[in-house]
């Protein structure tokens, strides 16, 4: 009896050990870093660009790096899924309700934009539009403005960066961000929308976005917003968001 109990204990112990080994290692909650402007959450690991030759076994293998195909337009279904994922993980109707908000004519319904976005309509023999046109870019702008404005309204309110959806950082109170502070926050948005760090982007991109933010803030200083809650800071970060969500890199792969 004692032997059986010992064997049972052993099996139980082994089982528990095995189970523990199968469990995934818990991912630590991202800890916001700090700078003078406040907390910044970047939950994507820092990447260092590596060449293929650095991968073991690839040191002497010849690589043909010539692109074999032109960039392609992200399918509209994937684009809409991206909108839903990046701007809060909502369903299409939930997102539509949020974008319409309590007024302001920022958004109509998804149905109003589907043909401009290139969604095929097989009932009417309208094929998928696989190339951009000016109307499609106008639709990107219309939708992008609604997405970013609503994100600014929620994210730039007082809440911890970890609970924010797009602007996962704090902004300094009562002053504009410095160049260094902007770079850190730009990197957060760059990773979110383009999926890679800003350090790997063309070098002129960061100063361009920086200038965009400055100019938007300056315009708002001379021309107050129609919406009272949208101050210069909010308007300028909304403009930066527009640029990300309408960027060619966001729409091509």
């Amino acid at each position, binding site marked *: 009896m004692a032997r059986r109990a010992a064997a049972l204990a052993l099996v139980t112990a082994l089982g528990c050990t095995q189970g523990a080994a199968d469990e995934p290692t818990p991912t630590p909650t991202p800890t916001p870093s700090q700078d003078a402007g406040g907390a910044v959450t970047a939950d994507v690991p820092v990447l260092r660009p590596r060449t293929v030759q650095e991968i073991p076994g690839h040191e002497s293998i010849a690589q043909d790096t010539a692109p074999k195909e032109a960039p392609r337009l992200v399918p509209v279904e994937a684009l809409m899924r991206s909108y839903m994922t990046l701007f809060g993980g909502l369903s299409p109707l939930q997102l539509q309700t949020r974008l319409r908000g309590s007024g302001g004519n920022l958004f109509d319904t998804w149905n109003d934009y589907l043909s401009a976005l290139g969604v095929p309509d097989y009932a009417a023999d309208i094929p998928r539009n696989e190339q951009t046109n000016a109307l499609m870019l106008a639709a990107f702008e219309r939708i992008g403005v609604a997405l970013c404005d609503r994100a600014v309204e929620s994210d730039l309110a007082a809440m911890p960066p970890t609970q924010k959806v797009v602007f996962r950082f704090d902004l300094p109170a009562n002053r504009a961000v410095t160049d260094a502070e902007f770079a850190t926050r730009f990197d957060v948005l760059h990773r979110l929308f383009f999926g890679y760090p800003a350090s790997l982007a063309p070098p*002129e991109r960061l100063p361009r976005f920086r200038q965009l933010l400055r100019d938007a803030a300056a315009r708002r200083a001379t021309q107050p917003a129609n919406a009272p809650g949208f101050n210069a800071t909010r308007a300028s970060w909304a403009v930066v968001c527009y640029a990300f969500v309408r960027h060619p890199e966001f729409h091509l792969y």
Partner: protein
Amino acid sequence: MSDIRNERRTFLKVLGAATAAGVSSQPLFSALADPPVAPDEFFVFIHASGGWDVTVGLDPRNEARGIIDPASTQWVDTAVLRNWRDATLDADYETFEILQPRGTNLRFGPAVGNLLNIADRVTVINGLAMNTVSHPDGTFFVSTGRHLAGGRPAGASIDTVMANESGRAQLFPSVSVSYPSAYVGNELDPRSAPLKMASIDSVSRVLTRANVNTQAADRNAVTMMLTQEARDLLARSYHPEVIEQFVLQYESLPRMVREDFLGLFQTAGLQTAQPNFNYRARFQSRGAVNAAFAVEAMKRNVVRCVSFSMGSLDTHGANYRTQPLVQQELFDVVAQLVASLDAAPHPTLRNERLSAHTHILVVSDFCRTPQINMTGGRDHYPNGSALVISPKFRGGFSFGSSDPDQLLPRVAGRFADGMRAVAPPDVLATFVNAFGVNPRKYLRDGDVVRELLRA
């Protein structure tokens, strides 16, 4: 020493020439290098979607001959047809009298509506060898001159071709409302990519801007910055065509979202501006809106080509009863389009009317069977007709024919590849050639039919 210098000079010359050739071979630069043809001409392309019954319209039959069952009071609603004149078919039913406009060789059925009033300006091509009874295939065959390859268009459609040749500088080179437009080929400038939409109205919502939280200046600043970003990507790109399109489209966007264009894309505004179209038509009310848009957009000189579809022609069953009415409404829209163009001044040429510089091509997937089927309808048939209204084409003229017993295309004459029937590529080749464009630049097949063109 001088030999070395000469060699170096020769080398530099060759290098320079090669660089220039390479640069100019890029679509954008080659497009900029070529002056547009027909810079003051406008184009309207209409696709009669579903396959029209030519026996009541452009290639009429009123005799029960061979396998042909002519339309009769047994099968169609005749009370709504303004041009229906009874003619005896048999003891029980009446068929129609064929209309033969004076001074032309045209023969019309009762479904041509008000087209009859402008018959002297109409060119009809009958007996088109469609070689297909598939809607998608026929649809793109008449617009591109090529059958589908693997289900995809194999060539550029006629609206894209004309936009590429003459519309690159326009704000909207080609507006395509449910038309079978295709942007395929290396010769095309990205600006000529058709602006495809399901309906004119759908555009107004896309172009509406709220100006609540941010202003037009903010959005335009973003657009300018993105243009720079796209230019940088273009410079780095191994395949520049896609990015090139982004650059050009970003550049046109601020002009496009101007508020004064919103009315152009709203049904109510178009109905007010062009009140003579029949917007209450049973089948073609949307076609009327599209035609009104064409007139208004051309008057403002913001488009080069407007193309749209007019449907409800796919009548396999009892719905064949309305086929002549559908066609009558379709041809009424075309006739009113011409009348509206007659009344509109040309936007860039003084003392000229728009109609003198607007060219209209109407085609369909194919035609319908000569027999009435078991359910009282007509199915798909590999014959076709086309209609052209253009100052470049001979008016009041019909070319080609179909077999009197079977309604199949008949030999129309000698072409480069021998005696055969006329086919859609021939119509398209003739159309582009009328404006001095070499058809072989865009079309693999098709001969220019000189008889169709004015001397």
